[in-house]
């Protein structure tokens, strides 16, 4: 009982989200014309409170295991909680409901309930410290995502996307569950710190089962972060889902997946030495992740070159970014973990910004096709300039926030020693390839002629404000970079006890 009471004090963001979720469901079922506004305000308030609690945890630097070792609270987890809650908050405030044409006329209650549920499960996933909790949280994230993807009920693409997502998800989480059960069988414990202790002393006899377990667990994580070769669902799902959902899926579950991956690979499959981590046991997962990372960034970038649908283009681009972020895990050092955090921070703003532009163009022109984008500069200068900024940030042009993210991950890889220089070089070549398709979007919007007969886009004041907000979030962080760097540095504290 004392354990539960103690845990609740460190569990405030999740409690706030659960309470908000229940309130939204109740308010929505009361009915009445005012309910749509009410659930929206309620959701925003819930997320704001959860964000406040997450920041409080981060500032306090709280750490420890809660709920009998089910979850961990540590600065790393708090960093992810801030990013995850912020992503949901930005989606609800900037994207829905007015700006998202696809969602017009659909019920708002369930949408907000689902976003809160997704946020809650993301938080649980990022803090999981036991394979029971890890798997449960992963399933919660997945099931909520499937439902959100199917939100456009009358739309065949949306239903197809949801079904594909479900089938891929079922197979990969099933594989992961098998891997986790092998790991449990080998170590006799479900607690991640307990597993690390057993692995550190070594598993007797043939190691085949251990290799299989690692491989299958990588499948599960790979599906969540859309890494090659578990990325097949990604373009179709991103295209079929409503754009706000796509934007959220491209950031939040991915960040949560990276959060648990760091915890798993650093905290369970490695042993901390000062500033760096050593592989424990015989599994060289670093090599496995290098291969996956290189394949992910290369395939994502090359496939994005020929896309004309903006949502598909950004889907492949997000696959490529997952490849870069994996570099931070492969580095297996505090520097690597910090680079991953900074990249996710940057990615949140540049990717959501790009998706906001796509949403707004669809709101006014009803198209996701890049071939309908010519002449946009003349029709909506602010929107086009903002898009320019997001694209340059996604390429990694200084002094935008995307550059800083790339600088840190490549730096972390170079830090590993000369044996990994080629890996950083592959990343740099990939960044150059990515430049082609991001710049192509800009060329179409700024230079290409067309759509002369269409009137200028009349952006609402709120939309302009949000575009400026995201533009500022991409442009300004460099000014107070030392503080962000300090924040991320302080956040690289993993609590690995029971």
């Amino acid at each position, binding site marked *: 009982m004392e354990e539960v009471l103690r845990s609740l004090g460190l569990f405030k963001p999740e409690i706030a989200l659960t309470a908000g979720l229940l309130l939204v469901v109740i308010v929505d079922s009361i009915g009445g014309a005012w309910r749509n506004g009410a659930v929206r305000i309620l959701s925003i308030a819930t997320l704001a409170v959860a964000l406040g609690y997450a920041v409080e945890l981060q500032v306090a630097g709280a750490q420890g295991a809660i709920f009998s070792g*089910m979850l961990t609270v540590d600065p790393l987890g708090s960093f992810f909680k801030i990013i995850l809650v912020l992503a949901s908050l930005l989606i609800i405030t900037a994207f829905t409901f007015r700006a998202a044409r696809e969602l017009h006329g659909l019920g708002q209650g*369930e949408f907000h309930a689902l976003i809160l549920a997704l946020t*809650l499960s993301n938080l649980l996933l990022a803090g999981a410290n036991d394979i029971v909790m890890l798997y449960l949280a992963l399933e*919660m994230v997945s099931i909520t995502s499937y439902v959100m993807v199917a939100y456009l*009920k009358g739309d065949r693409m949306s239903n197809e996307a949801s079904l594909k997502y479900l089938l891929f998800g079922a197979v990969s989480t099933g594989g992961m569950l098998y891997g986790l059960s092998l790991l449990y069988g*080998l170590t006799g414990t479900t607690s991640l710190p307990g597993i690390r202790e057993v692995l550190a002393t070594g598993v007797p006899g043939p190691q*085949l089962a251990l290799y299989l377990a690692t491989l299958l667990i990588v499948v599960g994580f790979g599906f969540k972060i859309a890494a090659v070769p578990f990325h097949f669902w990604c373009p179709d799902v991103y295209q079929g889902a409503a754009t706000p959902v796509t934007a959220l899926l491209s950031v939040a579950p991915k960040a949560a997946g990276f959060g648990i991956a760091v915890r798993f690979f650093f905290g369970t499959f490695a042993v901390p030495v000062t500033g760096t981590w050593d592989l424990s046991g015989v599994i060289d997962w670093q090599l496995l992740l290098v291969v996956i990372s290189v394949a992910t960034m290369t395939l994502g970038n090359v496939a994005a070159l020929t896309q004309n649908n903006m949502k598909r283009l950004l889907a492949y681009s997000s696959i490529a970014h997952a490849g870069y972020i994996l570099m931070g895990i492969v580095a297996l050092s505090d520097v690597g973990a910090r680079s991953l955090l900074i990249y996710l921070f940057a990615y949140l703003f540049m990717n959501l910004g790009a998706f906001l532009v796509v949403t707004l163009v669809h709101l006014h022109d009803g198209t996701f096709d890049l071939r309908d984008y010519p002449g946009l500069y003349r029709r909506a200068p602010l929107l086009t300039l903002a898009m320019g900024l997001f694209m340059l940030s996604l390429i990694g042009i200084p002094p935008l926030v995307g550059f800083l993210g790339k600088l840190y991950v490549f730096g972390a890889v170079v830090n590993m020693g000369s044996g990994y220089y080629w890996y950083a070089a592959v990343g740099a070549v990939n960044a150059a390839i990515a430049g082609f398709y991001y710049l192509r979007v800009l060329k179409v919007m700024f230079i290409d002629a067309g759509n002369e007969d269409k009137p200028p886009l009349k952006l609402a004041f709120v939309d302009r404000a949000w575009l400026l907000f995201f533009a500022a979030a991409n442009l300004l962080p460099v000014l107070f970079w030392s503080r962000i760097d300090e924040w991320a540095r302080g956040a690289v504290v993993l609590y690995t006890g029971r």
Partner: protein
Amino acid sequence: MTAADYVFWVFATATVVSGAVVVFARSLIYSAFALLFTFFGVAGLYVLLGADFLAATQLLIYVGGILVLLLFGVMLTHRIYDLKLRTEKTQLGPGLIVAAGIFIIFANAALITEWPTVGREPAPTTKEIGRLFLGEYLLAFEAASVLLLVALIGAAMIVRRKKDA
């Protein structure tokens, strides 16, 4: 072979054979009834593993609840008897090779690994499970209830027609 081994093979065969019928049957009704034996077989395997609570739940929830619901759904659906399921067999050769390869690797892993085992007689588990749900695994237990709520919301949302939204 001991008596337990014989019982194991009976249950394992029943599970695998009826599972194959579920997949390959051309009529939905046959599949649904074959599923009955699959669930029973799995429940029997749970008993042999000493998981008495799990076996009872398997019978109560899967056989008694989900399967009956499934059968009702199948039987009440209009013209379901005429429906011929088309199970396509594409890429049969490569598929068989990959499946056999995976089976050999996993079976090998299960057989050669030195599993750390606890020599313990099977004991009733229900009490212990109840204690763990409200103790060590309290959070997982509560999180599962949120998951069920979300699944409920999602199911209601997907099934409802668009115009009532």
